[in-house]
């Protein structure tokens, strides 16, 4: 359903991503791993179109999205989270999640100005939908709290919830375990499996934590200095000689 062909990105003289190709099947959990500076996050930023693609193509659900504007990506069914959390800090958890309903709105500025009955109905429907996600991730007790008063682990979860509120077909997770303690990471692996199984969302994940990858992902792509060096199941990849040398040096 999702395919990247010979994707490259250069920053000045540095080649951050060099001819990376992979495809993600529907319903799969696909991980990208690699040492620092391998270009993992760059791949995600290329897919969500925050960076312009230098060479190669990105295909999603049979359509070419290589040059789609960034705000189009969410509408096409791709949601993402950020490594350093990009929530709307001064708003409550509920407000943060409601923003994700923006792309599904059926009202315009004029009906919003007058808050016509259909806006009111739409708001109630959005709220009703959010409740499912809140239940799934057990965020009930944080609903009315402002983001800046929440601990880091909860913020990560809120960001995950917000991405899910877009009702995506493909979810991009940028280092979901960074900043979490081992216990929270363990919980996270269950959430990811739940999201994948219960909501039927395909997941593309950039991750450092080998345990998490081993627990949840079907296939792993290993990058080093922008080059793909191995692709396979977590077990296969772990013992791959190129991977070992990329992590430990030769």
């Amino acid at each position, binding site marked *: 359903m999702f395919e990247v062909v010979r994707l490259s990105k250069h920053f000045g003289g540095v080649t951050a991503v060099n001819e990376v190709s992979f495809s993600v099947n529907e319903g799969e959990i696909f991980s990208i791993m690699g040492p620092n500076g391998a270009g993992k996050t760059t791949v995600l930023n290329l897919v*969500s179109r*925050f960076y312009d693609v230098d060479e190669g193509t990105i295909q999603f659900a049979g359509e070419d999205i290589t040059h789609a*504007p*960034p*705000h*189009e*990506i*969410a*509408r096409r069914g791709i*949601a*993402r989270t*950020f490594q*350093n959390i*990009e*929530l*709307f*800090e*001064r*708003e409550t958890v*509920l*407000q943060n999640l*409601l*923003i*994700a*309903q*923006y*792309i599904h*709105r059926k*009202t*315009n*500025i004029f*009906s*919003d*100005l*007058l*808050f016509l009955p259909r*806006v*009111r109905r*739409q*708001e*109630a429907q959005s*709220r*009703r939908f959010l409740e499912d996600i809140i239940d799934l991730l057990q965020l009930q007790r944080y609903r009315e709290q402002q983001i*800046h008063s929440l601990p880091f682990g909860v913020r990560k979860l809120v960001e995950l919830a*917000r991405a899910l509120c*877009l009702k995506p077909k493909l979810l991009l997770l940028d280092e979901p375990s960074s900043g979490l303690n081992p216990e929270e990471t363990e919980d996270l692996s269950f959430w990811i499996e739940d999201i994948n199984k219960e909501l039927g969302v395909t997941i593309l994940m950039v991750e450092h934590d080998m345990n998490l990858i081993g627990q949840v992902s079907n296939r792993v792509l290993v990058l080093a200095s922008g080059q793909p060096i191995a692709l396979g199941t977590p077990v296969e990849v772990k013992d791959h000689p190129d991977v070992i040398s990329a992590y430990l040096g030769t």
Partner: protein
Amino acid sequence: MRFVLKTDYHRDSGLFRDRVQFSWYAALFIFVLCLPIVSGTYVESQLTTVFMWSIAGAGLMILVGYTGLISLGHAAFLSVGAYTHAIMLDLGVPMFVSIPLAMVLCSALGVVVSIAALRMTGIYLAIATLAFAMIVEKIVKNWSAVTGGNAGFKVAPPELFGWELDSTAYYYFCLLVLTVVMLCVSNLLRAPTGRAFIAVRDSEISAQAMGINLLKTKALAFAVSAALTGLAGTLLGYQWHYLFPDSFSMLTSIQLLMLVIIGGLGSMSGVVFGAIFITLLPDGIATVREWLPDSIGNLPGLEPLTFGFLLILVLIFEPLGINGRWQKMRLFFSQFPLYRNKTLKRQKSFLRTERVH
């Protein structure tokens, strides 16, 4: 402390938190409704001015407080609104047609400005809007065939369906307009459009990931903001009777910006607080002048100096403005013996510019 028990989803999108809050607003509304009966013409005209500044402030608040875009040129929209309206009145167009037309023109102008200006952010945007305001000021000054230039332009007295509004009727008219504006803006902010504004303010990158078109949303914010400011301009024209290019100078733009900052960014009640402040301050300064020795009291720049000084104080000590202070006081009393000083203290976090994606 009160806790709100929510039994259905509509409670989350209501205009008022609960009945108690609604009753307070209703009481306030009845109070301003009855005020002209007991007060003199001075209080009445001061309050009319507060209403008009509140409308202009609501316009700027959408832009600065909710979408996070700075404009140093909002006096231009006031000016365009006021002049368009006055000129149409002069041509015999009735008020209930000319006011909406002036608003439409202003919002169209807002969109044009935004197309040019929105590829910039922060200080560059501020400078671009400032330049726009100067262009408008020069046009108004020099196109004397239409605007009367420096000689001024007379505004026909307010007339609704053949009935001329006296100052009390005009007070009620402005109150009505303000109420409608406040309702509409509050509606906007609890609906998807307003949420998109707030998303753009808090994190552009995240807003994009949520499928929000940045340029379109910002242009929309500019359009709404310009329309409301233009509306305030049409009303101010009535109050001033004569329009001069100098009435809409850069100082007016800065005063408007001060209104929203001192009132409290990101709150609609802050707009009203700010408007009261802006209206009362010149009188306050005039009173203080009398107590001061002549050498200081007669300094010509005392007013802008005080404005600037107060703005700096607010930014240092109460970045959330009068509304922020008011919220803290309410929290203090609602939790009375248990209030802790650190409750509202925020963790120090990086400024946005220091953050690396």
